């Protein structure tokens, strides 16, 4: 579709662009103390964008001469991105760390970041892929280093820049090999070209798969490209850590699903129940091993942490591993599983991080010991944190179980060649119980019933936490609406 005609399908992004501009201009008009008000402009813009996404209908078409696709699949991820951005902005009002800084540009950068994520989930051209990843990365570097006076935050930002530049360089190299072999930058034309290549180019293809995985793996923090994660997550403002662990990860998975299954798939473009790798390239096996490594490393290292924030950072690596289990299956139910998991993960992981932000501001620390007897002192926070921890472990009747259930179900459905992966995943979720329940242990098993009960000081925090807790609980036993939504969203652009 031509550039001009495409605009009619591009309302969400257009509104988001206007939001960014408004935020930047509004920021100029506010004084330093009042610059937090920019958040309301951004929130308003996000609400309008969400409305536009939902109104967009279920059209499936390529936009801007085949640079991005408009389809329900990307709309699904856009909703997730908007939701997590809005929640993180709401929670930022209560962040202690941000109090010393002018926060106007914090919110405008967040909205630029979500624009980058929008591009990432809808890109169908490798140029667009690279552009989107760079927008997201550079904005993330800013945000990670937002606490200028905090050396940890500076360190986080610098590490992030170095790792980011390095891995996107390698990815670019992989993409250029692919371009050299196929002579095109469009996903579907690439697939066509690859399937007609002879077996003598397999080596080059495998090389490019590996290089591209470096870039994508970095985005979703898969092992062994995860080394930046704990330090960046620990140094960044906790609101940003929460955001980085959810939104870019979701977008990264959207990109991975689209790119690998459509470019390195058998050309059915994910329309059949299950499909194969093009030219029998061994990328599914590679991905399966990476998934197993990711969750195992994430979990084993998470056990040893003393800081809850760092523990959650490693746990988010482990969760990326669980979701990656469904990637090599190349089946629709695997993709469903990832999509369901991402929704569930958004609620429970943001919930856990938000409780952490609240505890930081009330107790003043983020180690396990700072959670001591919190369940007795602040029952509301205690119960919610228990819910989020149980859900992250994946125990019924919480949403986390449903996410794991769909992932495991898709792995088992794929047949006996991936049973080992299901075992690794299952044992990993047992391991993860140990460190998640450790938070609960500190909250409840230490300390006694206290006479004074602390309720959250801010109504906004209460509201946000309840908004996150309700789906975390309800989706645990009534997940029909969730699966329906995912089902409707599984309409993906399939090429011309």
């Amino acid at each position, binding site marked *: 579709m031509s550039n001009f005609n495409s605009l009619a399908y591009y309302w969400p992004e257009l509104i988001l662009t206007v939001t960014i501009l408004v935020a930047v201009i509004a920021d100029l008009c506010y004084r330093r103390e009042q610059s937090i008000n920019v958040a309301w402009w951004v929130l308003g813009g996000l609400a309008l964008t969400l409305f536009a996404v939902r109104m967009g209908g279920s059209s499936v078409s390529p936009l801007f001469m085949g640079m991005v696709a408009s389809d329900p699949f990307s709309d699904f991820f856009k909703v997730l991105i908007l939701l997590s951005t809005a929640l993180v902005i709401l929670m930022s009002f209560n962040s202690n760390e941000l109090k010393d800084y002018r926060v106007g540009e914090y919110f405008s950068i967040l909205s630029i970041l979500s624009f980058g994520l929008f591009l990432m989930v809808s890109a169908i051209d490798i140029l667009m892929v690279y552009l989107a990843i760079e927008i997201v990365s550079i904005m993330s570097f800013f945000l990670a280093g937002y606490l200028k006076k905090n050396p940890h935050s500076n360190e986080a930002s610098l590490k992030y820049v170095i790792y980011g530049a390095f891995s996107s360089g390698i990815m670019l190299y992989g993409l250029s090999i692919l371009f050299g072999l196929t002579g095109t930058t469009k996903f579907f034309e690439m697939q066509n070209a690859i399937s007609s290549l002879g077996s003598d180019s397999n080596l080059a293809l495998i090389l490019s798969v590996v290089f591209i995985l470096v870039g994508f793996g970095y985005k979703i923090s898969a092992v062994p490209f995860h080394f930046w994660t704990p330090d960046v997550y620990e140094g960044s403002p906790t609101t940003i850590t929460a955001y980085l662990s959810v939104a870019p990860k979701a977008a990264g998975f959207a990109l991975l699903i689209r790119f690998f299954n459509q470019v390195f798939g058998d050309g059915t473009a994910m329309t059949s129940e299950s499909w194969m790798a093009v030219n029998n390239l061994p990328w599914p096996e590679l991905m399966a091993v990476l998934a197993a490594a990711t969750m195992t490393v994430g979990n084993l290292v998470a056990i040893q942490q003393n800081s809850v924030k760092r523990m959650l950072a490693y746990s988010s690596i482990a969760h990326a591993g669980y979701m990656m289990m469904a990637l090599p299956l190349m089946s629709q139910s695997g993709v469903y599983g990832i999509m369901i998991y991402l929704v569930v993960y958004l609620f429970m992981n943001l919930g856990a991080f938000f409780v952490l932000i609240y505890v930081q501001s009330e107790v003043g620390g983020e180690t396990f010991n700072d959670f001591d007897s919190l369940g007795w002192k602040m029952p509301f926070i205690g119960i919610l944190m228990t819910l989020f921890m149980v859900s992250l472990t994946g*125990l019924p009747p919480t949403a986390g179980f449903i996410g794991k259930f769909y992932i*495991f179900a898709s792995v088992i459905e794929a047949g006996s060649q991936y*049973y080992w992966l299901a075992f690794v995943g299952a*044992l990993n979720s047992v391991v993860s119980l140990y460190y998640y*329940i450790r938070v609960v*242990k500190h909250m409840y098993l230490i300390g006694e*019933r206290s006479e004074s009960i602390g309720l959250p000081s801010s109504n906004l925090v209460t509201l946000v936490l309840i908004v996150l807790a309700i789906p975390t609980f309800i989706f645990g036993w009534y997940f*029909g609406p969730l699966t329906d939504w995912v089902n409707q969203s599984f309409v993906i652009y399939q090429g011309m």
Partner: protein
Amino acid sequence: MNYLLSWIIWLPILGMVTIAFIPRDKSELIKQVAAIVSGIQLLLTIYLWRIFDQSVGTFQFMERAEWIPSFNITYILGVDGLSFPMVFLMALIGFIGVFVSWNIDKAVKGYFSLFLLLNTGVMGVFLALDFFLFYIFWEVMLLPMYFLIGIWGGPQREYAAIKFFLYTLAGSVLMLIAILALYFTCGKTFDMLVLMETAPVALNGMLWWGMSAIKVIWVLLFIGFAIKVPVFPFHTWLPLAHVEAPTAISVILAGVLLKLGIYGMLRINYTMLPDGVFWFAGALAVLGLINVIWGAMCALAQKDLKKLVAYSSVNHMGYTLIGMAAVIAASTMNGDNLISAQAGMGGAVFQMFNHGTISAMLFILVGVIYDRAHHRDIDGFGGLAAQMPIYTAFVAVAFFAGLGLPGFSGFISEAMIFIGAFPVFKTIVIISTLGILLNAAYFLWAFQRIFFGPANEKYNDLPEINTRELFTVVPLAVITLILGIYPRPFLDMISATLNVLIDSVVSLGGFTSAF
């Protein structure tokens, strides 16, 4: 009443919600609500018993409701002669447990809320006939147990609680994999009734990585259930959890939770993988034997009375395994001895129930002395019989019942198990009777050290067992005695169902060359 089973399951949740609205300072009211709710639940199960048709071997009072149609998940409940005794046991022990916990003074509101939640979880497992529902209930039990041990437990409670949690979760994730494997290989359904028919056929001859699918699924499920039983070598969490848990939780743990494992094997492994039963029966009997001997030896070595009782549970559950293994006696290959199979299976189920009442009684009595003396060191007492004659009498009843003295229900079930298993597992039965001897040894020796001999000066003014405590022990003692003399009502209730079960195991399994 159309939704009788749902009421039995969800009533405790109703109680939990009610308790949530009671101010936390009104602890008496909270206890009363818990007592009333579990009382009504007990009455409902008694009503269920009255209208339960013993002559039918299939499921009764079925309930069915749409849940998640897109994944073929349905809400199905039903009760038969295998699950009813367990439901009754849970209702009874849940009711008694409230009174056993009457002394709890730390965070009463939280305690009774979790207690009722645990009750719902256990009831749900016994009544669920949809595999997904079964699994949800199975897992719902874990968190309340963790808190009940971890918050209200003894000095090592944190370690005991996490060990219990990790062990059981490890078992249940393996079970989840098995459930999903069954789902995808046997017609995409979680409906147990359908799976019971399709699984034996669908899995026949299927190979995964060169291993028979039946064996793989059997072992996965078995490990999941064996951890709960607990079967040697998965038993190490049990003594710890028992010792650290508050009395009422030990009572529930020994009285009901251990049965979940056996129940699961009979309900799922036996019906869906009958071929596996024949493959595994020998191992089952051997594991049972190890449980019997190992449990008894460990019990003999204990200094802590509660640990002794805990190991006696390991010992008693061993008999159940031997009895279950006897089911293969009914096949043509192993002697076509239907009576044996019936005796073995009946004995196993009866033993489950008896262990429920007897071990509950034992734990309550241990709790009684612990409340007074604040320790459970067997050698730290002496001559208590003179101070607490009534208490001594009840401990005597419980110990004798535990060691399987004729006249108590434990004797009947153990005898049935030996009779049933003898034709197929002669050596094992002969060695395991040795267990009975050890059984008597540790109980009698402990009894002698605590109640006879020179009186310990320190305990000259120990108060006698009080009315509330008597109220918790007497019903259990009466049931043990009545069933010991006249077990007919119980056996009649389970026999129809067990006959169906034996018949399906023997007719569907054992002669295929699936492996």
